[in-house]
């Protein structure tokens, strides 16, 4: 009987349960993960033993003093850095890149100057399966449609065939977001993506990123210096101590979505901001030697 049940087609209820359990799955898990760069006397501890679990579909912001190891956590999740101690599990496996489709964006948009914006955006499709093996065949036109649809979502309609140097910094950063999302990643890693932009462009891009997240629902890990940005975008904010970093505060952000820029000036939001600020100020003061060089 039990055997038969397992092979029966999934009922609607079972399918929903399966979807819910997938939603509750852990996308990124750091267990006592520590990172030390260099060896012997010149070894520098970048990250203390850190515990972090990010459920699938969550939007987590990492804030903290500069040089505290925020980016190191991001690189651990991307599989670019191996932990010196502890375990990093992404998408249920230890080797990051193969288990889960990952999209990444940095402060520097790094568009390739010899490609048009749409070609730049489509770059991940040339690399990630299953798109990669379809790229040279009939699917190329549909890939272009996909790129155009994403570019439209970030307000770059009509710029697809321009070259990167014809676009402003804010426009390049929009294209950078598109490149990070084109292959429908389950995990989106953002390292200060809006750090080099002016305040107005930045706020506009927050809203765009929120919209993209609401549509695609990837798990997001966002490293930022901007506390308003963290509060506006994230479901959850982790505060880190000074180098060698560890997570000293981990709190949920409950504001309803879609959030608005006006919301960031309301008392509740300002209070959250103030609390984060105090935590980081204390963390900076507690640092043994403020050598930020």
């Amino acid at each position: 009987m039990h055997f038969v049940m397992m092979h029966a087609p999934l009922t609607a209820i079972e399918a929903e349960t399966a979807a819910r359990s997938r939603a509750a799955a852990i996308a990124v898990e750091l267990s006592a993960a520590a990172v030390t760069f260099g060896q012997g006397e010149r070894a520098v501890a970048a990250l203390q033993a850190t515990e972090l679990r990010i459920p699938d579909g969550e939007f987590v912001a990492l804030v903290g003093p500069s040089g505290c190891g925020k980016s190191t956590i991001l690189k651990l999740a991307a599989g670019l850095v191996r932990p010196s101690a502890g375990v990093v599990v992404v998408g249920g496996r230890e080797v990051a890149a193969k288990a889960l489709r990952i999209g990444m964006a940095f402060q520097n948009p790094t568009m390739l100057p010899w490609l048009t914006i749409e070609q730049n955006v489509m770059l991940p499709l040339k690399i990630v399966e299953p798109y990669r093996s379809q790229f040279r065949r009939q699917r190329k036109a549909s890939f272009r449609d996909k790129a155009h649809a994403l570019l439209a979502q970030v307000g770059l309609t009509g710029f697809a065939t321009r070259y990167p140097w014809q676009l402003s910094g804010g426009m390049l950063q929009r294209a950078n977001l598109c490149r990070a999302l084109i292959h429908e990643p389950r995990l989106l890693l953002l390292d200060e993506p809006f750090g080099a932009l002016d305040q107005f462009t930045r706020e506009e891009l927050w809203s765009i990123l929120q919209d993209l997240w609401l549509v695609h629902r990837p798990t997001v890990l966002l490293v930022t210096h901007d506390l308003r940005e963290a509060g506006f975008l994230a479901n959850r904010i982790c505060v880190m101590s000074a180098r060698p970093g560890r997570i000293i505060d981990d709190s949920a952000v409950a504001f309803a979505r879609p959030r608005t820029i006006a919301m960031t000036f309301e008392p509740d939001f300002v209070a959250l901001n103030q609390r984060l600020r105090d935590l980081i100020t204390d963390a900076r003061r507690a640092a043994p030697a403020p050598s930020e060089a």
Partner: protein
Amino acid sequence: MPRPEIRQKLASAGLIVLFFVGWEVFCVVSGMSDLILPRPSQVFVTLVQRLPVLWPHIVQTLVTTMIGFILGVALGILLGALIGVSKTAYDTVYPLLIGFSSIPKVAVVPIFVLWFGSGTVPAVLTALAICFFPIVVNIATGLATTEPELEDVLKALGASKFDILWNVGLPRTMPFFFASLKVAITYAFVGTVLAETVASNRGIGNVMMSASSNFNVPLLFAGLFILAALGVALYVAFSLIEARVTGWATRRNDLAAAA
């Protein structure tokens, strides 16, 4: 008033004409013997009269240069890619390369002649030896200067070293590569003529050598003019290819307006 670029071209052409006119006038006024410095008009006359005889030598020099150049480019790309991709290979190979490149290539010609006899082969080898180094350096530099952030983005996607090389490294290298081709073709030319001068019975280098020993000074200068013309022609050819392939690296306003 003509547009700036046209004015610029007129100025360049004017300077060239002025150079030859000045030379002609200087020879006539100073009464210089044509055994020392022939008048340019004399040289042109010699050039036109002797062209049927000179033609096989021009072809010889051109073909030798191209063979040496193509081999040099192939070797340069191979070594440059090897060095640019791997830090270890870079550190290991570079000192030897520097040592090799600092040898004056004139000194190598007698060795090539000893090994392969006089003729085309030592000329090809000299052209190769003299022209491959700038290509190695430029390819290696282009490959080594990939932005680390972009590399991280691609690695996180699961890109292999080859993926990154193919999609980012090599296209990025193209402007460096074509810049080095322009230098290399000129060098290859120098190498060929050098070897022909020392040990060959064909080619412009050889023609100039025998003209020199016969005190046929106008012919000697005619050879020089041919070399200059060939050098300029090759340079222009590669500049045109470069503009085609790597136009993105020279972001001009007319491109922006056209897009």
